[in-house]
């Protein structure tokens, strides 16, 4: 009898949990999945729970999460960013709504965890990572387009205005851009008799230069370039050269099976194979020490790499990809929750304005050594007024990338991280000598079609 009772309790509880698992917590939130326009901004603001912080005497508080948690010894730029945030906080310390910047190690994880519970943090800086689709799809983030238009911030937010516009809405503004070209060791190129990137009009030119370096350096431990994560940047740029539309929009089966996709993949895979699997990594940062010790001739990294070379004797010069192409995308940046109170919302939008202002953007360029989004700034003039070698090198790299004939968004941002990983992995696999590149291409095409399905 006792056993029966216990069994009954267990069985009932299990059935209840099963029903709960399939249950619909909130029928109202289904609007997104049904493709209906979400009008949650106002309704959620009305439902907003009390965000007043007792610690600040009943004042409201806007909490902003960012990833600049590093100490000065690890990354001085992080300290400079925190100072920028603090200045804004200090300026609003006596307002009805105060501002607090909180550093966290993984902003995306923080947001994802909250999203799983159907909420979004007050304000987040995604630092170039994508804004989770779930946040947009479920109407949890604020559209800033009207504010940007009203305040005339189009030139201040720069390419955020176009690249981060989704169906006429701007959910995120990144104050600095993920801009990528390449860095090459001019002395090594000269010693190897290789043509320099400024003369490359196509990828055959680049492949010939890489072969020259490999021939010159193989007995000295010198290799042509940092493949792997760097390879997808080459692929990305080559796709942009062949068809900018393909590299700028959502990935489709037509793009995957296009001639352009095949041409770009095969060319980069062949270069990777000639470069050798030992010189391949899915983290381009792992090549830094080889670059600064003169072993890696070409560093396929962003403009922010400028700071790595100025303290060394290595003669690294910035360049862009063959055919006058650069990669640049804002990625995810300052993103605001849709369910804030009016005071919090106003402060959050003011913070966006502050971060894209000329004054702060200059600091981002001069102190953080990143490519600012604000297009009103003259980076070359700013660099001339600075005696910092890193700033001068950064200005050179930024102006090359910003003035490229073709500027393409990064595939990571437009095609998604899983697609990016699949392409990197397949290129990495091709770097092993004897690998059948055509077969790998066919495998990749099949995988990608399935992944986007």
């Amino acid at each position, binding site marked *: 009898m006792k056993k029966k009772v216990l069994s009954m309790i267990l069985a009932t509880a299990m059935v209840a949990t099963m029903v709960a*698992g399939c249950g619909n917590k909130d029928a109202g939130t289904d609007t997104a999945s049904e493709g209906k326009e979400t009008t949650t901004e106002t309704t959620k603001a009305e439902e907003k729970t009390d965000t007043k912080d007792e610690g600040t005497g009943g004042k409201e508080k806007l909490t902003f999460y960012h990833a600049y948690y590093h100490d000065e010894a690890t990354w001085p730029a992080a300290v400079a960013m925190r100072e920028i945030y603090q200045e804004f906080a200090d300026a609003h310390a006596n307002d009805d709504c105060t501002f607090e910047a909180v550093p966290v190690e993984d902003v995306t994880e923080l947001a*994802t965890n909250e999203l799983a519970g159907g909420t979004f943090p007050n304000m987040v800086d995604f630092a170039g990572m994508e804004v989770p689709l779930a946040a947009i799809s479920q109407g949890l983030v604020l559209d800033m387009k009207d504010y940007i238009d009203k305040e005339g911030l189009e030139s201040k937010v720069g390419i955020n205005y176009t690249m981060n516009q989704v169906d006429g809405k701007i959910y995120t503004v990144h104050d600095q851009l993920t801009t990528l070209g390449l860095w090459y060791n001019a002395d090594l190129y000269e010693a190897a008799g290789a043509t320099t990137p400024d003369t490359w009009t196509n990828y055959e030119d680049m492949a010939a230069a890489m072969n020259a370096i490999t021939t010159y350096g193989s007995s000295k431990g010198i290799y042509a370039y940092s493949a792997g994560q760097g390879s997808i940047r080459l692929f990305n740029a080559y796709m942009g050269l062949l068809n900018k539309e393909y590299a700028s929009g959502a990935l489709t089966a037509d793009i995957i099976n296009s001639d352009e996709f095949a041409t770009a993949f095969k060319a980069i895979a062949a270069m990777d194979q000639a470069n050798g699997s030992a010189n391949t990594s899915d983290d381009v940062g792992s090549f830094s020490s080889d670059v600064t010790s003169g072993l890696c001739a070409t560093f396929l990294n962003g403009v922010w790499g400028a700071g790595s070379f100025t303290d060394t004797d290595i003669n690294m010069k910035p360049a862009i990809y063959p055919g006058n192409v650069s990669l640049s995308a804002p990625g995810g940046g300052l993103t605001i929750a849709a369910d804030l109170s009016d005071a919090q919302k106003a402060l959050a939008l003011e913070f966006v304005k502050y971060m894209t202002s000329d004054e702060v953007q200059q600091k981002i360029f001069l102190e953080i050594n990143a490519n600012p989004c604000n297009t009103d700034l003259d980076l070359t003039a700013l660099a001339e007024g600075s005696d910092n070698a890193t700033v001068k090198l950064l200005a050179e790299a930024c102006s090359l990338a910003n003035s490229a004939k073709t500027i393409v968004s990064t595939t990571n941002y437009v095609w998604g991280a899983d697609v990016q990983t699949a392409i990197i992995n397949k290129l990495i696999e091709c770097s092993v000598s004897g690998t059948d590149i055509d077969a790998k291409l066919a495998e990749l095409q099949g995988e990608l079609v399935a992944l986007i*399905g």
Partner: protein
Amino acid sequence: MNIKARRTLFITLFLLPTCICFLVFYAYPILQILATSFCQWDYTNMTSPKLLPMNDLFANYKYIFREYPYFWEALRNSLGWALVGVCIQVPLTLVVSIVLSKGLKGSRFARNVYIIPSVISSAAMGLIFLQLYNARYGPIQQIIQMFKPGYTENILLVPGVNFWAIVCAYVFFCGTTTIMLLGQIHAIPAELYEAAKIDGAKGLKRELYITIPLVKPTIKTVTTLAATSGFLLYNEVFFLTNGAAGTKSISYIIRELAITSTRTQYARANTIGVVQIFIGLILVSIINFVFSLEKRSHRNEVGR
């Protein structure tokens, strides 16, 4: 209240915390995984999984088995690592614990040294092995080049070889199971060994006929742990290859679908979770069956 009723109440109250914990932390997640594998649950409805229409109830299973490009590769690898775990870890654990049980000089020190890697996280071990396998500077590459001069490939990218490279990153670290087995060996009464000695069982015979049969239940536990840890391998794959060159595991693709995918495909990830649980149960059942075979044959002999 009579004694019987009080006793029932007493037992029920004692069982209640366990039952609640079982339901909340064990049954609920498993049932949730099972239930949501029949739902649409992704970035469009993260807080409200929606049951799929009855005519398309198995859509997630169809996608995983027929379309998802990495499922079969991951399943093959995970089963392979489970099998290798059993074939290498169990004999290794047994041999090491028998040797340590002898109480030879320095065995206590050796035991402690052997256990140290077990307290290092598998993520840290993954990073350590990444350095070991580094194709330009890693010691493994130097050793390979001693036998094969001029070899420059990254072994983590060579299909087949990378499977074993990942095996080496986890299979030798069995300090915890060694301690379990060692404890059981120490619990064997000394009289049994003395009696065996009188009967002429010495050296290897002593271990084969006395030690191993007496610690068989623990060997079964060690086998289960070895199989499941191989089957659930994740960190080593993530850090060493990030799933490249045919090295994806079941745990890895679950994360790919749930976290890496921009579309946050929770339901599809949970569908693989269901398969993982199901295969895990089969693995445990096989181990139980294999270990019960001898018991059954013994019973049959007694019956005759």
